[in-house]
């Protein structure tokens, strides 16, 4: 097969991905403009609002049981409010993706999220998700001359035009391990605001600390109880200053799973708490499910994982309810339904019925269903509720429109491409063993795309494949038992390192054990050993290489130590001292621990600049043939790439690179001796290990596990989104990059000449491309067939995004472009 046809096939595959995604992720159709009252206008406008002051406390990731369950909740004051009828509690279902930005959109506009929002949540300074043209609660308050003040997560300030807020201060979640400062920055505004409480109508507070604790230590972290009490104290302070016409809402934007992450659609993630509190509420009848129930609730253990407490509502129902209670028009894109018990607060059955009809009419408009006033006014209240529920279900399901032309074009082009490509390469390979194996692997993974649980648990399939392949290889080459056994032990260690997938969460993974206080020192010694091993293994050949490895290794190590110290983790004294010596070179005058946080950005920047500089110099030397003695730059570049991968890995995973290094030595030996450096075998080994280690590093096919902690290395306040995006991608694909680079040792080793290298480059790309082609076909088909499936946005769409990342970043950029440039430099 010629290089050109291979290149054409690659572009065809990328084009198919691109076309399908255009069809699959369209922008949601929204109604523009602000709504006004439609039914009995004058009567509604004159009606007095039930409340005139709103305090909205958003506690990020406040799962329902944090407020309601006796096992975990530490909100004594809130419980007393709930018990004496001054507060009503609800479990609010928050639509996936359960990340902050889409949920805030849901809580203010009442619309269901667009899947793209989940990704934009990461790309924080993108403003395409801005809500300035969309109707929202804040817009309605603003139009009605209410004064809004906001303190908390700066996502709000990115969502809304700043002139909505009379006063505001954003906090950002730069360091996820900051549990206290981020909340104190919000709380310190409260006394002043309570003094000036006649100057504002709406006060919004958004606390991030609880979410940070969750990400770091899970829902049962030892920091949780104190955080609950802190939040409860704030609720007490706010409630005690609340007048009779004030409403205090405490709610979580989403929940969290048992690991403390969120983004997916498990019960824990979608069940957020919502509490309405006001002195006025005790005059009304409690919601039926709250009657005769004493908070906090002790649940029977078999019902433990449902996270359903008291009345269940949709989180978007918050929007029409608040609009009604403050006598505002319901925002146009809201799919919410007024919460029934709270409707009774209007104390006027005629008005109640008008408000309901208003809600109904607004939903009809949103669903593009035409109706006349007569149809609506003839309906009874209970009929309205049932009708609204069915409209709500329809609207939630069809939140986006697909472009069917693009979907079809994408699917057809990928199927045709796959068939063509398979025919083309079969001419060369003639269905030899390795081609059949790669087809079996691709079909196995491809077929698994149709089952949501297999997508969630893809790591299990890869583990299955890895064990199968090693056993097969042992069967084929029985005289290398010891090497294969060592290899097996290595992969087993890697498998035990982290949890992946949603279904099984194990306490005693190696990374969890290493993070425990008593083994924390051990972790740091392992990290030191790993970085030393990776830097110096095989780099003693000549002085420049040694100097390069040494300097990069030292930079990575001192950066990792500084990062952990800045994040308040415990680092053994010896290690700290070593890092301090390095950091002192940058800041000779400083001696306190603050030196580490000061050095954080310079260290990372220095590292990346050195890497880049080294890369360019090496390429130039190679190209201009200045140094005749250096014939092979791949060795050194492998080292550089490995250190970059370590740089972008979180500390608990770094020791895994030590295991990788051992595996690599064994694999290189086996493939060179027993498989004659066959490039096809090498590429399949590389492909399988890329995926296997990706999942074993804690990656999944869910948005929830995208690791952001290394995306800001060396980035200062005014950052470039592309740079952060690149760092984030490297961080999440770090192990895969290692295993992509591993094949260089075999394909371009010293005993190859440049012609052989070019051939090897081409051959090694053949089978991975086949894999991506086949997976693409199955995935596109499953996304198309299952487009109305309940899990389409929580399971299949994220998988599609990951697939795009794999085929663009890992296959195209790392595999083709980067490696291709290096091979060409040797030409």
């Amino acid at each position, binding site marked *: 097969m010629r290089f050109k046809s291979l290149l054409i096939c690659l572009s065809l595959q990328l084009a198919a991905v691109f076309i399908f995604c255009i069809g699959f992720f369209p922008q949601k159709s929204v109604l523009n403009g602000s709504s006004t009252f439609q039914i009995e206008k004058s009567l509604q406008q004159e009606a007095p609002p039930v409340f005139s002051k709103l305090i909205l406390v958003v506690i990020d990731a406040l799962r329902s049981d944090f407020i309601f369950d006796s096992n975990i909740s530490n909100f004594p004051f809130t419980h007393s409010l709930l018990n004496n009828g001054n507060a009503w509690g609800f479990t609010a279902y928050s639509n996936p993706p359960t990340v902050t930005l889409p949920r805030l959109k849901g809580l203010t506009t009442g619309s269901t999220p667009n899947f793209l929002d989940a990704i934009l949540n990461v790309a924080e300074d993108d403003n395409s998700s801005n809500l300035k043209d969309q109707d929202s609660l804040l817009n309605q308050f603003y139009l009605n001359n209410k004064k809004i003040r906001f303190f908390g997560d700066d996502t709000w300030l990115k969502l809304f035009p700043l002139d909505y807020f009379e006063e505001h201060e954003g906090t950002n979640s730069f360091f996820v391990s900051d549990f206290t400062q981020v909340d104190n920055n919000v709380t310190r505004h409260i006394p002043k605001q309570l003094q000036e409480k006649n100057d504002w109508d709406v006060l919004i507070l958004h606390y991030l600390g609880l979410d940070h604790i969750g990400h770091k230590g899970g829902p049962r972290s030892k920091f949780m109880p104190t955080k609950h009490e802190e939040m409860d104290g704030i609720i007490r302070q706010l409630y005690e200053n609340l007048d009779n016409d004030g409403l205090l809402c405490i709610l979580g934007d989403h929940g969290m799973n048992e690991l403390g992450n969120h983004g997916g659609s498990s019960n824990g993630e979608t069940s957020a708490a919502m509490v309405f509190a006001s002195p006025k509420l005790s005059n009304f009848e409690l919601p039926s499910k709250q009657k005769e129930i004493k908070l906090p609730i002790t649940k029977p253990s078999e019902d433990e994982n449902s996270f359903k407490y008291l009345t269940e509502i949709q989180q978007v129902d918050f929007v029409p309810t608040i609009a009604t209670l403050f006598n505002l028009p319901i925002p146009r894109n809201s799919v919410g339904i007024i919460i029934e018990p709270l409707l009774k607060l209007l104390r006027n059955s005629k008005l109640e019925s008008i408000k309901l009809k208003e809600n109904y009419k607004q939903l009809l408009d949103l669903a593009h269903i035409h109706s006349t006033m007569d149809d609506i006014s003839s309906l009874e209240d209970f009929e309205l509720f049932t009708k609204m529920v069915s409209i709500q279900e329809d609207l939630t399901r069809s939140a986006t429109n697909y472009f069917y032309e693009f979907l079809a074009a994408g699917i057809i082009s990928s199927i045709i491409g796959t068939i063509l490509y398979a025919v083309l390469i079969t001419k060369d390979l003639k269905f030899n063993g390795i081609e059949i194996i790669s087809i079996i692997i691709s079909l196995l993974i491809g077929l698994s795309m149709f*089952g*949501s*649980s*297999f997508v*969630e*648990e893809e*790591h*299990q*399939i890869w*583990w*299955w494949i890895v*064990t*199968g392949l090693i056993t097969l290889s042992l069967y084929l080459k029985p005289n290398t038992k010891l090497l294969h056994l060592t290899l*097996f*032990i290595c992969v*087993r260690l890697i*498998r*035990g390192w982290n*949890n*992946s*997938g949603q*279904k*099984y969460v*194990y*306490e*005693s*993974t190696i990374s969890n054990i290493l993070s425990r206080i008593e083994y924390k020192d051990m972790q740091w010694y392992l990290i030191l050993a790993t970085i030393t091993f990776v830097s110096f293994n095989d780099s003693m050949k000549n002085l420049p290489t040694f100097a390069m490895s040494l300097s990069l290794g030292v930079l990575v190590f001192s950066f990792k130590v500084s990062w952990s110290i800045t994040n308040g983790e415990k680092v053994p004294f010896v290690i700290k001292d070593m890092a301090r010596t390095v950091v002192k070179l940058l800041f000779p005058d400083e001696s306190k621990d603050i030196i580490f946080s000061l050095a954080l950005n310079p260290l990372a920047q220095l590292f990346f600049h050195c890497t880049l500089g080294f890369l360019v110099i090496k390429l130039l030397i190679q190209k201009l043939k200045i140094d005749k003695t250096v014939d092979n730059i791949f060795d050194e570049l492998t080292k550089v790439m490995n250190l970059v991968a370590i740089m972008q890995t979180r500390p608990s995973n770094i020791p895994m690179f030590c295991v990788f290094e051992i595996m690599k030595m064994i694999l290189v030996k086996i493939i060179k001796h027993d498989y004659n450096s066959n490039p096809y075998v090498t590429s399949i080994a590389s492909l399988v290990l890329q995926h296997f280690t990706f999942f074993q590093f804690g990656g999944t096919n869910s948005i929830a596990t995208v690791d952001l902690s290394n995306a800001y290395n060396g980035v200062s306040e005014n950052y470039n989104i592309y740079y952060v995006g690149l760092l984030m991608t490297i961080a999440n694909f770090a192990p895969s990059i290692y295993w992509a680079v591993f094949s260089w040792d075999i394909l371009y080793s010293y005993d190859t000449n440049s012609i052989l290298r070019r051939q090897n480059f081409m051959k090694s790309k053949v089978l991975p491309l086949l894999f991506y082609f086949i997976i693409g076909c199955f995935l596109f088909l499953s996304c198309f067939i299952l487009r109305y499936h309940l899990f389409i946005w929580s399971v299949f769409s994220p998988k599609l995004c990951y697939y795009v990342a794999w085929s663009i970043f890992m296959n195209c950029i790392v595999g083709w472009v980067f490696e291709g440039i290096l091979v060409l430099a040797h030409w």
Partner: protein
Amino acid sequence: MAKKKGNKNGNPQNVKVLPDTSKRNINSQNLKPNKETNNTNIKKSILNTPFHLIILLFLYTTQRHKFDEELLLYLLIPLQIIYTIFQFSSNFSNSNNSKKISKRTINLTLILVVPITMVFAAIPIGLLVILFGGPILENYKKTILLSLNLSNLLLPIIYLSFNKQISIDIGKQYAVSIFLGCWLSSIVIPLDWDRPWQMYPVPLMVGGYLGSILSYVLTDFF
């Protein structure tokens, strides 16, 4: 991450039969030309089917003590011994001297020795289960029970190997089929049906039993 593939690769034989091999060497050299006859000499009989394993599997999956590996193990050991004595071994005969063999069929000392060696066979099997992903720190009891069960499924084979009635190569086929049964059945573990039978080690137990039933039955035909 509860995927585990149990398996056994003929390790049991390797390990425990090794001391024996020196003695056997002469024997096996003699036997080599006969290897094929050896194979064909298995008496084909419907009674070869391990009915007791089918019943045990049925008990394991449907009865009141559902999925109780410990109970199953206690039932399995005596039943396997009985099966070995009365059915299985009598159907394997060495073409060279089938009359002598028939005397040897009930070798009581061996019958006693074999269960003890089974316990030791369970160690490499357990290691293999762990290597294929079985949990070590959590659920390790299940891993131990699983490997004991699996090793006892091999009891008749190991007995016959000791007794020099079959060659190790034939024994391997049995072991491999149990291994494949375990490995293939573990694919159900990630499915999100949340059924009790998806919990480790149930799929591996069922897979191992099915694999061994199948291998005993298949000897009848091939």
